[in-house]
């Protein structure tokens, strides 16, 4: 904060360098391929579905696609910051989504909506700061740090709440949020898009977003440029925590229930969407908008499989294949360019 002005002048050259590096990267073929890749994949898939799958292109069905996408999408949008900062993923979203959902409904029932939201925000900040300090200050591996905070967080949640399921009031504000539509669109869907756009702006237009991308693409240069790198990491994990919190809210409001097991699998599912969208797990490259596309793509694919009557096993296989395929295209494109 104070040293920012002091170090700002001192370190302009390296910072500009990083920026330049980012810019040149943005126009390289691989980037183009990956970006167009997900657009192309999504377009082809949607076209296929519209032509061959009865009922796909109906409004209720598109609502389903977005209802499927909204909670996981908001979580993934927040987690994109962690991935772009070069820290693989945030496994603890599983615990965070469940905690936020339970807190929203349980505390609203007991005290009120506003305390519930404030309390959930406080928890999200704690998650962001704990994960961020362990990864940013202690330079510990994010996979293991967030794995252990998942254990601790879910353990605490279940231990202290006794694992009960919570139901919101049938005419309370949470229910209203979950069922409100604006025109034909559910509120959750609009929230999903608004959050994605906001986070996208944070990533592309703010100083913080720039530092996250810079840190992800070259840690050492960013540190030498005088950036307070631990703060950047803490910030990235806090964005992820806030995304997970909002995702938990949407999930809880959608069904007006909360239980600690409702977010099982959100960790790897969110990561899968981010990767399919074309964000690199090496850090530096990627965007929130791509995550949006990735989430939509996975949701459309799952929707198509359900509409065709395929079971859970085939759905998992398809998602697995897709991840490998999407990234292979990117990797092979880079290889051919290098050669």
């Amino acid at each position: 904060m104070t040293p920012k002005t002091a170090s700002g002048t001192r370190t302009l050259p390296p910072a500009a360098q990083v920026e330049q590096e980012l810019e040149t990267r943005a126009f390289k073929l691989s980037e183009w391929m990956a970006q167009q890749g997900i657009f192309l994949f999504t377009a082809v898939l949607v076209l296929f579905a519209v032509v061959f799958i009865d009922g796909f292109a109906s409004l209720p069905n598109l609502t389903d696609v977005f209802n499927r996408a909204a909670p996981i999408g908001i979580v993934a949008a927040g987690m994109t910051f962690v991935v772009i900062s070069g820290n693989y993923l945030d496994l603890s979203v599983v615990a965070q989504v469940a905690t936020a959902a339970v807190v929203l409904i349980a505390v609203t029932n007991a005290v009120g909506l506003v305390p519930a939201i404030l309390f959930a925000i406080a928890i999200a900040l704690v998650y962001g700061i704990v994960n961020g300090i362990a990864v940013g200050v202690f330079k510990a591996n994010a996979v293991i740090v967030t794995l252990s905070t998942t254990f601790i967080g879910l353990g605490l949640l279940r231990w202290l709440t006794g694992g009960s399921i919570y139901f919101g009031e049938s005419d309370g504000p949470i229910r209203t949020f979950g069922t409100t539509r604006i025109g034909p669109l559910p509120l959750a869907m609009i929230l999903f898009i608004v959050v994605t756009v906001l986070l996208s702006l944070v990533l592309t237009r703010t100083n913080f977003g720039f530092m996250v991308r810079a840190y992800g693409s070259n840690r050492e240069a960013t540190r030498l440029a005088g950036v307070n790198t631990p703060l950047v990491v803490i910030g990235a994990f806090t964005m992820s925590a806030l995304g997970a919190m909002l995702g938990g809210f949407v999930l809880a409001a959608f069904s007006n229930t909360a239980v600690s097991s409702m977010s099982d699998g959100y960790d790897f599912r969110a990561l899968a969407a981010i990767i399919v969208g074309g964000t690199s797990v090496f850090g530096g490259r990627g965007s929130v908008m791509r995550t949006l596309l990735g989430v939509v793509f996975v949701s459309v694919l799952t929707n198509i499989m359900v509409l065709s009557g395929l079971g859970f096993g085939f759905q998992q296989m398809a998602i697995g294949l897709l991840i490998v395929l999407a990234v292979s295209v990117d990797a092979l494109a880079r290889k051919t360019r290098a050669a």
Partner: protein
Amino acid sequence: MSQTQTDPRPPSEEQADLSTSDGLVARVRLILSRRTEGRAVALLMVVWVFTLLFEPLVWTSYEVTLGRIALVGLVALGLTAVILMGELDLAVASTLAVSGVIMASFDSLAVGVLAALATGLIVGAVNAFFVVVVGINSFIATLGMLFFLRGAAFVISGEAPVRIADVDAGIAFGQPVIGPLTPRMLLFIVAFVALYIFLSHVRVGREFYAVGGNRQAARDAGIPVVRRVFTGFMISGFISALAGVINTLERTAADPTAGSTVLLASFAAAIIGGVLLNGGRGSVFGTLIGASALGMLQVALTLSGVQVDVQNIVIGSVLLLAVITDPSSLRAAAVTARGLFRSRSERQPTG
């Protein structure tokens, strides 16, 4: 050091003796400073003291404890080989499930076991193919396999557990063969010894460290990196499949949902054992100690009736402590702290 200096009465005769013991201390210190298992040993000691005081049953019924250690540790051993090269294998649990299901779908037990183990090798080879030939980060390649193989396990099994053809053979497999040792423990010991020798006394295995430490340097030194990565992933795949075979035999049925706790427990064992996730540092010995500590802890907590949520809080805390007390982590934190102080003292004169 202080010992020799403060001791006022070293007769010349004992001098030599003492200096050799001092040399021994120094040598032990040197060895210790090179070892990476320190925290795992510390944890194991704590667990020992804790169990001796509160749950002696952990020791008196040692065969149960050994069984749990073998359950927690086997997959972790294979995983260690991959992590040493700086790669990850997230597909271990799914490999375990799918190989079990494949094994149970054959009428002949022997054919089933062979098919399952072959599956493990193939999965490992496919993982390695994507990592070194296509050039995908192993984190993503094995994440894809995690989903794909789990789905395959459901599809092959028809989304329900599959009983093996010869249930009695399965039950017999769970019985002790040598003293109190069941085939599971024997196979675990064999896997440990084989990997230990391979990674510390065989050239190919020792090159794993070089591949994980600095891949370019390893390449420059003429190490066939691609082949080593294939070997590593195939070891991991094979051992996961072996665990799947053992579990399926012992339970007399294959469960497509099996292994839900395997992935995270294996990582925990390896990390507590001092294996560095970025590669190049660690040992299967450390993983063994890490798995022992975790396994004993679980048995002790189960015996004392501590509910699983609290167990998870304990294990999570231990894991978090293990990563942030890694020497390199503490160094990083110290650097940050120093930077903080420096910038503060710099600011003071100017401001």
